[in-house]
């Protein structure tokens, strides 16, 4: 935990907690969740994984992408104070099963309207961000990656203040949060000095409307192989930068340099959900805008389920678009002697930095959830995926696979992803 939130936490403890503790007997509660989940793509050209995982598997059943185990310890100090620690283990950036502390905070329910939390929290960017690892809490095989994945980090260490109040016949909630975070990908490590945002939720009868705005500032790459491999490229780009004759050239080089010097951006997510005894509907539209070379993006998710006893068949549609990094760039420079070098560098940028982001896709989902036991749900899901750019070297969730010669395997842009999972709570 970073120092600033820790100091805040200690200050809050000194303020009120000892007196509160003296009045009640603390209660501990241990619970957990997990998923034993297998996935398989039907094409050796494309593997599937979560964006922070090291290994993707293609054309064979694998338990590595979606299987996970979470353990949570709740400490109810008294009706007003509650602490929580949640650890989730799954395949992570080193390709091994690793536990990570997802939640570790102390909550003060000031009164029924106000709640303050200090510590580590999952950043509530989308309506399923906070519950994304709890398979049992999802209708489908996994939280919708198209919207959840629009935010590159997971949580933050900081503070979170929520106000809830009756509004009309429903209830309105306003939540603001701020903090800092660090995050690891297989090839890159980040530190982010400022994560902040606000969300508004209104629930009325069976409907929930939610809007969240999240900002990050001063995100810096601090390590990882990506920094090393791009160092010569960045040096070359900075050499031609003074000679850029077009905005595209200078703007691209500035954005690439921000990977280390500090970048930021914002995320907007609008969600509408409905749940009654028969129907369940999740819809969400998300956008992101960043000032580094990582693409701006937008995504859409719609998932409709019908509850029939313990069976819930569902179908969905989702799409994700990288909006400005799918085309090759060209660098025009004022010094003709440097143009061949500029062309070569533009080729490297296009192939290695831009193309991996061009996983523009549509997904059609069909699945069945079967609540076989009070604490166990089985799910069977088929995703039919259409990628727009079939030549791009995608990374992230869907990963292009090389053949024995190191060349990308040919891909026609059509993929099926099969998922079987047993999601449980205890």
């Amino acid at each position, binding site marked *: 935990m970073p120092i600033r939130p820790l100091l805040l936490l200690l200050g809050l403890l000194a303020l009120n907690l000892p007196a509160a503790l003296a009045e009640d007997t603390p209660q501990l509660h241990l619970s957990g969740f997990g998923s034993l989940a297998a996935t398989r793509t039907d094409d050796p050209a494309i593997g599937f994984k979560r964006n922070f995982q090291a290994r993707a598997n293609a054309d064979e059943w694998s338990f590595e992408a979606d299987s996970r185990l979470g353990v949570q310890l*709740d400490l109810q100090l008294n009706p007003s104070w509650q602490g929580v620690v*949640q650890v989730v283990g799954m395949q992570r950036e080193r390709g091994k099963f690793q536990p990570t502390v997802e939640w570790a905070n102390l909550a003060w329910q000031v009164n029924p309207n106000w709640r303050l939390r200090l510590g580590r929290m999952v950043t509530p960017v989308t309506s399923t961000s906070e519950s994304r690892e*709890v398979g*049992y*809490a999802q209708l489908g095989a996994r939280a919708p990656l198209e919207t959840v994945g629009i935010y590159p980090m997971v949580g933050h260490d900081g503070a979170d203040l929520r106000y809830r*109040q009756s509004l009309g016949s429903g*209830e309105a909630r306003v939540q603001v949060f701020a903090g800092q975070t660090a995050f690891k990908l297989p090839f890159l490590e980040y530190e982010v000095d400022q994560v902040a945002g606000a969300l508004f939720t209104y*629930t009325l009868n069976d409907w929930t409307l939610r809007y969240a705005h999240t900002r990050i500032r001063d995100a810096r790459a601090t390590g990882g192989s990506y920094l090393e491999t791009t160092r010569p490229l960045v040096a070359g780009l900075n050499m031609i930068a003074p000679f850029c004759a077009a905005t595209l050239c200078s703007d691209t080089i500035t954005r690439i340099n921000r990977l280390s010097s500090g970048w930021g951006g914002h995320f907007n997510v609008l969600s509408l959900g409905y749940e009654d*005894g028969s129907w369940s509907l999740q819809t969400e539209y998300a956008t992101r805008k960043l000032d580094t070379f990582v693409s701006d993006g937008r995504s859409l998710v719609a998932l409709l389920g019908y509850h029939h006893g*313990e069976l819930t068949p569902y179908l969905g549609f989702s799409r994700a678009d990288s909006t400005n990094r799918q085309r090759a760039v060209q660098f025009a420079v004022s010094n003709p002697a440097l143009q061949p070098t500029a062309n070569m560098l533009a080729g490297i940028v296009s192939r290695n930095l831009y193309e991996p982001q061009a996983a523009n896709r549509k997904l059609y989902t069909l699945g069945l959830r079967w609540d076989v036991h009070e604490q166990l749900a089985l799910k069977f899901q088929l995703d039919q995926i259409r990628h727009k750019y079939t030549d791009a070297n995608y990374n992230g969730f869907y990963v292009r696979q090389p053949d024995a010669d190191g060349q990308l395997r040919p891909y026609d842009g059509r993929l099926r992803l099969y998922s079987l999972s047993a999601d449980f709570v205890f």
Partner: protein
Amino acid sequence: MHMLSLPLSLLLLSTTARAELVVVASHESPISQLSRAQLAEVFSGRTRIVNGHAITPVEYENADRERFYQQVLGRSPSQMRTIWAKLLFTGDGQPPRVFGSYTEARSQLLADRGLITYIDSKQLGPGLKVIFP
């Protein structure tokens, strides 16, 4: 056929009919009435304040959960468990606290006017009032 089936129906009714499920709170509760939709919101943890008043649902061992979820909330038990799993593991709240018996739950309701629970109408006693239906 009709002569035979009518007494049989009455017999079945007399053995299977149960008293009505009602939702109760302390008679000091500021809440006088909740709608079915509001109950669904409160028991699913999506709302904890109704008309400006804090409400906390509780349950007890041997409560008629399935009938309450199905008939009053209009949700299946598995739907409710899914909703509570999301609440619990996102730090957004707890499922309703389950007391060891109705007697214990009742004494808690009498002591805390923000608590509500559901009972068979035959169990209604002094100090409690019906807020649904």
